[in-house]
């Protein structure tokens, strides 16, 4: 750091280095057309190429991350040199470690990774990743992520947010990124509290919660994040927890493979302001009875396979698989492409009679916003040719003055 005062304004014109700006090339179109979910009334007409995931333009390094083209990348390649400043014991550490471990497995060069966050303890995350990143402003990460992904669809964009960041101040943006289906991953750290501002209740805090701003208990009805994003037409919604890195990694990996907005809610323990909030689901003593890890195409079982969930009308109910009354065939087989099942499953939320679900609730393949925007531009260029400034300036009625 220099303590020198900046110089007084100069009056001479500065010379700039010769122009190096190269025209960006648009990503090449992919041949595959997206398939629309069955039952959609009218198929929107899509510009050709919409729905594809673009690849890096020619000239981009194809080697493994790290850019040196030789060594196999490791977790260390994705760790920045900045000291991590979360409270000791915070669940954020486990999420960071899991993401850093996952990165080398994705086969995406480090320089193509971009992490965009809002504001909150969780949103400090990008500083700790040795990738491109922006720690932006409270609640607005979805907008910045949309801007970068739409204008640079070949980049691999991740968005980091908290329960306050995404559901309170950023509530408007989160619903719109969902309906647009921008091709990126969202990791939402849900600790059911405002961490960074030192412990006020958040939009996911339970009714009755006593915090600094609610000494007599919160009276706000909480959001159910998975139900909320499904209501906003999320195309991929999953839930996982900080204390199960293996499951978390699996969810993040699936969100990454998914083309569209991959929303992953992570239950994260804030040991300072909301300790043990999810311990029922995350700790050994109660986890198997209180949490169910469900998978697409598999029957819903938990408690070490001794219990299952069956559909009774539109309601889920627990069945005992050991007393001979019920068998595995009675359990509901999960279908992650069913909006109806996703809705029923998402509404299993802090229920005493049912385990809290963890897994991929819903997946719908539909073209992403970024690919459609770029495909539309491409199709206009194909139809009209690359625009000429000269022609544009001279269009319409003109006349000569001599």
């Amino acid at each position, binding site marked *: *750091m*220099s303590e020198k005062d*900046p*110089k007084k*304004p100069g*009056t001479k*014109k*500065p010379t*700039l*280095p010769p122009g*190096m*700006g190269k*025209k*960006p090339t648009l990503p090449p179109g992919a041949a595959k057309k997206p398939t629309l979910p069955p039952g959609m009334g009218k198929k929107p007409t899509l510009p050709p190429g919409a729905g594809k995931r673009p690849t*890096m333009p020619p000239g981009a*390094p194809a080697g493994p991350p790290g850019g040196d083209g030789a060594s196999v990348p490791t977790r260390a390649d994705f760790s920045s040199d*900045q000291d991590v400043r979360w409270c000791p014991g915070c669940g954020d550490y486990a999420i960071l470690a899991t993401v850093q471990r996952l990165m080398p497995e994705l086969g995406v*060069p480090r*320089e*193509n990774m*971009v992490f965009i966050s809002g*504001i909150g303890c969780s949103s400090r995350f*990008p*500083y700790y990743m*040795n990738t*491109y*990143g*922006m*720690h932006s*402003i409270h609640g*607005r990460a979805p*907008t*910045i*992520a949309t*801007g*970068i992904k*739409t*204008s*640079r669809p070949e*980049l691999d964009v991740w968005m980091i947010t908290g329960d306050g960041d995404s559901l309170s101040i950023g509530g*408007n*943006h989160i619903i*719109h990124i969902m309906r647009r289906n921008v091709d990126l991953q969202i990791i939402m750290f849900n600790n059911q509290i405002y961490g960074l501002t030192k412990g006020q209740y958040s939009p996911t805090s339970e009714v009755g919660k006593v915090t600094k701003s609610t000494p007599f208990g919160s009276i706000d009805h909480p959001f159910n994040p998975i139900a909320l994003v499904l209501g906003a037409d999320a195309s991929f919604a999953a839930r996982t927890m900080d204390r199960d890195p293996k499951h978390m990694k699996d969810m993040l990996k699936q969100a990454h493979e998914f083309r569209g907005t991959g929303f992953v809610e992570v239950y994260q323990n804030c040991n300072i302001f909301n300790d043990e909030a999810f311990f029922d689901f995350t700790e050994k003593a109660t986890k198997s009875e209180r949490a169910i890890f469900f998978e697409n195409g598999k029957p819903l079982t938990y408690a070490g396979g001794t219990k299952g969930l069956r559909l009774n009308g539109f309601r889920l109910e627990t069945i005992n698989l050991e007393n001979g009354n019920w068998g595995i065939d009675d359990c509901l087989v999960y279908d992650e492409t069913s909006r109806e099942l996703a809705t029923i499953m998402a509404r299993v939320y802090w229920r005493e009679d049912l385990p809290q679900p963890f897994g991929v609730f819903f997946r719908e393949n539909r073209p992403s916003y970024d690919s459609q*925007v770029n495909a*539309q*531009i491409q199709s*206009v*260029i194909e139809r009209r*040719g*690359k*625009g000429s*400034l000269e022609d*544009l*300036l*001279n269009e*319409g*009625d*003109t*006349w000569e*003055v001599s």
Partner: protein
Amino acid sequence: MGTKTVETLPEATVLFAGDSGDGMQLTGTQFTLATAYAMNDLATLPDFPAEIRAPVGTTYGVSGFQLHFGSVDIRTPGDEVDLLVAMNPAALKVNVERVRAGGTILVNSNAFERKDLNLANLDTNPLEDGSLDKYRVIQVELTKLTRETLKDSSLNQKEIDRSKNMFALGLALWLYSRPVEPARKWISSKFGKKPVIRDANLELLKKGYHFGETTEQFVTRYEVTPATLPPGRYRAIQGVQAMAMGLVAAANKSGLLLTYGSYPITPASDILHSLSKYKNHGIMTVQAEDEIAAIGIAIGASFGGSLGITGTSGPGIALKGEAMGLAHITELPLVIINVQRGGPSTGLPTKTEQSDLMQAMYGRNGDAPLPIIAASTPGDCFEVAYEACRIAVKYMTPVMLLSDGYLANGSEPWLIPDADSLNDFDVTFATGTNAEEDGKAVFHPYVRNEKTLARPWAKPGTAGLEHRIGGLEKQDGTGNVSYDSRNHEHMTWIRAEKVERIQQEIPPLDIFGDPDADLIIVGWGSTRGAIEAGVTRALNDGHKAAAVHLRFVNPLPADLGEVLSQYSKYLVPEMNNGQMVRILRDRFLLPFEAMNKIQGRPFGPSEIQRKIAEMVG
């Protein structure tokens, strides 16, 4: 057919006024086109209500289109109106005060029934009560003549009545000896697929024109000879169009993708409308969920190496404040367009004002100065849009670009610029490391260019330049988060200094008028035409005055202090309650006098002329 005398005029101001549904904007636009073909210089001022379809016949539903044209240099849409075409009593009532004494008022006399007068809240009929005695009133039975003309048409009564503006247009074209051909051509192509409507409109246009020739009501017909404009190819241009094309030019010359994020708002929406048509010109548009999202999208795009632009009006700027601060501290290029309208709050959405200057200067938390550039004429919007983009990239800074409702909707003949004559627009992306750390070559995002203090622009996707930026204070050089108090002070200075250095881009000021005067008028934005026309008139009156116009509002031009020191009286006309005047007083400690107009319409030259007379007469 009576014999008509032809009187040659140096200039004239015509105002078409009627109900929102009377097609006055269209009539005005077509009259403008004919005037452009007649090679006059011109300026227009459309004036429409905030309601889309206000109740028929009411004063608040009146829509107007004013046009000032001449063989002389035309700088404003005109002060006093020479011809008012009023389609109903409400239009007459709202606009009569703007007609000069002795001016002509042409009314549709069929629209002055008792019920029409009631709708306009008029107790007596102005055509009979003597209130129009100081004007020359020409009563034309527009409704009846239109119905007679189209009696054999298959159009229904409503459609026929709606077409009477074409009769009025034909008549006005005749009165000022304008060519009919451009309007004929326009009708033919617009209604090519609806021959019944096309033929009805063509017939009315012709009948209106002939009516002028045959009626005894007109003894004089006017002529305005061609203006001496600089040679070249011209088109009529509106400020919004020019602004959009300036952005396209920036995309074209820089080779950058331009990403425009916007949320609809009057009068800025037309920029979004125009740009969304230019997808094959290196422009991407995103209609965002709100103004905050719109600027966020633009910032994200800029971080990705394309140029983010966001456009709105005052209320939208209020929402963008925090994100502008983010762009300022992350030192990313960004252009924020404010097409100003009457405020505060929702204010006067369709009227013009310059009241967001303080908001542009100071409307962010923290010390967060932005360069501010203001357009002065509809055509100038092209140049300032281009300049704003160029400076944003060269200095890695958000730039605030100010226009207003009058500039956006007003039009003028525009000498089509030669794309090659624009300032060079070089873009340099960082390609390699620029610092050393522990003997290792590394990339530091806040190492600065010595001349501009700009930091390097490193595009994601470039190996080895991975870095993080954000809203927390940065250590100069490394760009790491820093809470160090000395560093914060230094960074605040350096960000301000970077904005100040943009003075390097500002050409020396031009003094308009008499440089030896005691009085200098300092203007900014769209008041330029009125100020300079007012000074010209004052000089003709023998009153000495000079004027200087500021395109750069922040930083102020380096030579402004020196220029001001040569005068002893200072006047600052603004369409607000005194904003620039405060900035100037603050900077120069000179006795600047404020001249304010906050009526939702631009200054006229005569107002400036009178004020000069008052100050130096």
